């Protein structure tokens, strides 16, 4: 099994593991951000370049460093490879450049975007980006399109990560949408205004890292940070029925799948669960969803201590010790 060192952490991983997945096995701050790679979708990754890392030592046999940063989601590890992510200032500078390129045509309409607060591009630009745009030219403009009666496409916000296309290819029967044209005129589109209409199409919304594909039933209803996310499940014949309800009082504003810490869905959910079941009585509540405390959604969001995994007795002991000394 090849041994790889990422930012000083060494781990042994199975043959053929990508650097990104090796970093995820280590976990923590050293995991490169990823906008297009999605572990549950085959052949995803390699488009956005946010996951670039610096390989300072190719392998045990060939210790030469790689001349340029490489996309960690597409590069497999070699035995004895040494990788730098957050410990390399040049790499962080390069990633900053990538973020700037991703934002070149982005309209930055976060105040009206439903994705704001849970948007990966927002987090990314906050962590790596400049707080100012250097781009003077006109940004790309598109009409808003309804793809089906439940999904809205804002092409201006799209970063062409191809995740939704992979969902259509791999999850939905019969793909009707894809990326048209190429270069800076490339856009997500359906085949001659066809509507995306099948039981799994709603997952496109969840995989979209930005606000390009949004839920029309939730459009402008509320801001994410004013809603209360609750884990809930229901008996569903098509999907696992495990979802997150975004509540405002007793009203179910939105239903989404459960996302892990990398923003990837744990289970695909069907459109019936996502769009039709907007009553609290349709669902069995499990409890509040765990939200990372760095997220704006955690504002006024209360969970039980058990879910937060805080051991009160441990805290008490620490406090007592501090008090005694």
């Amino acid at each position, binding site marked *: 099994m090849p041994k790889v060192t990422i930012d000083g952490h060494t781990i042994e991983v199975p043959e053929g593991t990508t650097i990104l997945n090796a970093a995820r096995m280590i976990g923590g701050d050293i995991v490169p951000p990823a906008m297009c790679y999605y572990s549950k979708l085959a052949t995803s990754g390699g488009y956005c370049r946010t996951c670039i890392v610096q390989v300072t030592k190719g392998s045990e046999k060939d210790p030469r460093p790689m001349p340029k940063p490489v996309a960690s989601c597409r590069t497999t590890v070699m035995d004895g490879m040494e990788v730098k992510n957050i410990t390399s200032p040049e790499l962080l500078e390069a990633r900053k450049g990538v973020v700037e390129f991703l934002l070149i045509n982005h309209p930055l*309409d976060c105040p009206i975007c439903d994705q704001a607060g849970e948007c990966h591009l927002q987090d990314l630009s906050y962590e790596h980006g400049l707080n100012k745009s250097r781009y003077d030219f006109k940004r790309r403009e598109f009409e808003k399109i309804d793809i089906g009666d439940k999904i809205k496409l804002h092409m201006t916000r799209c970063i062409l990560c191809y995740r939704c296309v992979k969902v259509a290819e791999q999850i939905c029967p019969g793909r009707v949408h894809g990326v048209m044209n190429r270069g800076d005129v490339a856009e997500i589109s359906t085949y001659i205004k066809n509507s995306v209409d099948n039981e799994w199409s709603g997952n496109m919304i969840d995989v979209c890292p930005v606000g390009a594909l949004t839920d029309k039933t939730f459009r402008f209803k509320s*801001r994410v940070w*004013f809603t209360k996310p609750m884990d809930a499940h229901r008996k569903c014949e098509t999907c696992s029925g495990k979802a997150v309800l975004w509540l405002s009082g007793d009203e179910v504003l939105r239903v989404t799948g459960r996302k892990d810490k990398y923003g990837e869905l744990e289970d695909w959910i069907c459109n019936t669960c996502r769009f039709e079941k907007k009553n609290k009585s349709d669902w069995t509540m499990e409890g509040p969803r765990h939200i990372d405390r760095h997220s704006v959604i955690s504002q006024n969001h209360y969970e039980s201590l058990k879910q937060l995994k805080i051991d009160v007795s441990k805290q008490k002991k620490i406090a007592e010790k501090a008090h005694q000394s």
Partner: protein
Amino acid sequence: MQALTNRSMVVVNKKMTWMERIYLPAIIGGLMITIRHLFKKKVTIQYPEQERPRSAVYRGWHVLKRDEQGRENCTACGLCAVACPAEAITMTAAERKPGEEHLYREEKYASVYEINMLRCIFCGLCEEACPKEAIFLTDRIVPSGMLRENFIFGKDKLVEGVEPDNRIDVSKRARAHRTY
């Protein structure tokens, strides 16, 4: 117990003298104080006819600004409400319909925007959070009222008028901030 101040007095139940028993000297003494205050400079002013000078950065009654073309700046992004430490702001968003472009600047707007003036602490964090330069605190004092319901200010009391005369000037505060 140790006394907190040196003003405490021990109560003595002694027999009063004749002068003390007729109370008149004490009453006259008290009246003298009242009469003396009549001729002193008054500490109160006749508000609202009279007003005290206020700092240029005074924060009072909010305004929701419009742009030069008279369109509302607010897009109901909710940042003011999330920044508000008193949780005084609530809003409901709506989508702009075709033909309403002269009313609202962007495709989303606040159909309901309410500030509970009883909860508001006039800290100005909403103004700081606003990405659209929509909400400002002005030097207008919030009028008093008899009913609690009247202190929930909706868009009718917050949005400034379209006509140039009805616009509310917020530049005074901005200028004052710049000189500090």
